[in-house]
């Protein structure tokens, strides 16, 4: 048990006050309001009237909601790809190539790129009649892809943007974890005759397993919350090509049905909460390693 220094009983709260004020007022209070509005017929020009579960009933019988929820589940596929890609990048950067320091900076650039800029850049590549991707495919004699107008490509297009923007960040996280893996352990294993892939599998992966679990939780939550990439990259595509948060946005800000939008939001929050708890439990029992 670490030591504690004496302090006035109110001191901790003085330190915490500004942060708690902001998180409490703008986030928790707002969440409570969303919960309340989800039972009303609130619109920007109408005072809310209590309507019971009407919004939730509308929601559950709405095809768009289920399709968007399904798409959000599909969007979770970015997580494993992201982990493999960013880990690969971390290995490359760690390999002490001559270009490694520069490469690290380069690979981090997508992370600092504002999402709207990333989406605009990819939209140019995806352009169906004149984009670089389709012209390359055509030049190779492959069929062109309807990146911006056909399911499931629309979703894939947005997922690629998410991947592109995210892998540099997770690469740095993995790099930090890899540095912490004792070299002696790897050397000992390879002296014992394990091949390089064997070392990877039996030494490196187990020791960074908690980090993999953490990254998978963080990136899954981010995937369920995705908005910007869809909003700009596949602008104009039907809502059935998108996920839940764009549905919330459309319901609230294009149709003015705040009450219904709040019900969708609460449902999504419940999904994220459930998913995170599940994920946490699974990764804990799997790893068996203390975090």
């Amino acid at each position: 048990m670490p030591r504690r220094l004496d302090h006035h009983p109110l001191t901790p709260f003085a330190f915490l006050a500004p942060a708690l004020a902001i998180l409490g007022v703008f986030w928790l209070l707002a969440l409570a309001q969303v919960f309340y509005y989800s039972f009303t017929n609130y619109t920007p020009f109408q005072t809310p009237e209590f309507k019971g579960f009407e919004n939730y009933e509308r929601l559950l019988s709405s095809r768009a909601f289920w399709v968007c929820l399904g798409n959000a589940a599909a969007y979770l596929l970015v997580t494993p790809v992201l982990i493999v890609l960013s880990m690969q990048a971390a290995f490359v950067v760690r390999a002490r190539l001559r270009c490694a320091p520069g490469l690290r900076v380069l690979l981090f650039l997508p992370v600092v790129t504002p999402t709207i800029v990333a989406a605009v850049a990819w939209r140019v590549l995806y352009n169906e009649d004149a984009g670089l991707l389709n012209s390359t495919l055509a030049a190779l004699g492959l069929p062109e892809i309807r990146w911006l107008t056909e399911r499931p490509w629309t979703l894939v297009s947005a997922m690629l943007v998410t991947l592109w923007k995210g892998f540099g960040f997770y690469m740095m996280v993995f790099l930090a974890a890899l540095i912490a893996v004792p070299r002696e352990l790897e050397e000992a294993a390879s002296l014992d005759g394990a091949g390089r892939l064997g070392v990877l599998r039996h030494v490196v992966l187990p020791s960074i397993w908690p980090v993999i679990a953490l990254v998978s939780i963080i990136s899954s939550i981010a995937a369920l919350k995705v908005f910007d990439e869809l909003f700009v990259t596949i602008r104009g595509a039907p809502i059935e090509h998108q996920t839940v948060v764009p549905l919330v946005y459309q319901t609230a800000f294009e149709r003015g049905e705040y009450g219904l939008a709040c019900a969708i939001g609460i449902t999504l929050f419940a999904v994220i909460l459930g998913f995170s708890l599940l994920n946490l439990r699974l990764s804990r029992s799997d790893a068996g390693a203390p975090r």
Partner: protein
Amino acid sequence: MNRRPAWLAIWLGLCAIALAVLAIGPALWLLLIALQPAEADMNDPFAGLTLRNFIGAFSEGRGLAEPLVNSVLVTLFRAGLNVLLAALAAYPLSRMRFRGRDTLFVLILATMMIPEQVIVVPMFRIVVSMGLYDTLTAVVLPFGVSAFGIYLCRQAFVAIPWEMEEAARIDGANALQTWWHVIVPLAAPTLATLALFSVIAAWSDLLWPLVVLQSEHKHTLPVAINELLGRFATNIRYAYAASVLSLIPIITLFIASQRFLKAGLFAGAVKG
């Protein structure tokens, strides 16, 4: 460690090239397209070069000068507040004992799970009731602190040896002075990392400023780019040019702050 076999060296080299192309290719291509005249073939990188779109991006509507200044202001204050408030809040959470501490910490972490788009409507109403609609303050304030930042700082503070803090206390420093003179300097690398992440997030933020800002002269860069994309009869390449321009400050800052961004700093985020 033994020498790398040839296949591995080749594989790593190929990966390095592929990753580098993937990372900067899209932005470079966008730059190229933004430098073309409107009638150019988008597949021909040499279909003519012009600065017209960049000039247009600055002259269309109210231009980009105001959004640039607004974005810089919003970003600086958001990052500053984030570092300050997270460092303050993390101190008692990591180094003091008081009732309800763990509950509070869990509650703070729970806000990470709230999609901001979901609470945008009531958040908007709260901001309106505070009289902050259509102000830059409203863009900054709700994002003035983040659970992620508090978590990051707490991880860093926990690792600071108690002896340092005790020494300060024996010298008669109060809690605030100890925090400022001992904790903050020792956690400076983490705080710098947090500052960088806050800058990245603030510079990129689109939805909240889009909702809460109305007057054009208060728009931030992402909002301005979004409006250029939506403008009816606009040359779409103005939006491309504006996108490229908005990258310049953030990339410059990132490269300038390179020496702070050592991989080890991410350790704070991953070990617990």
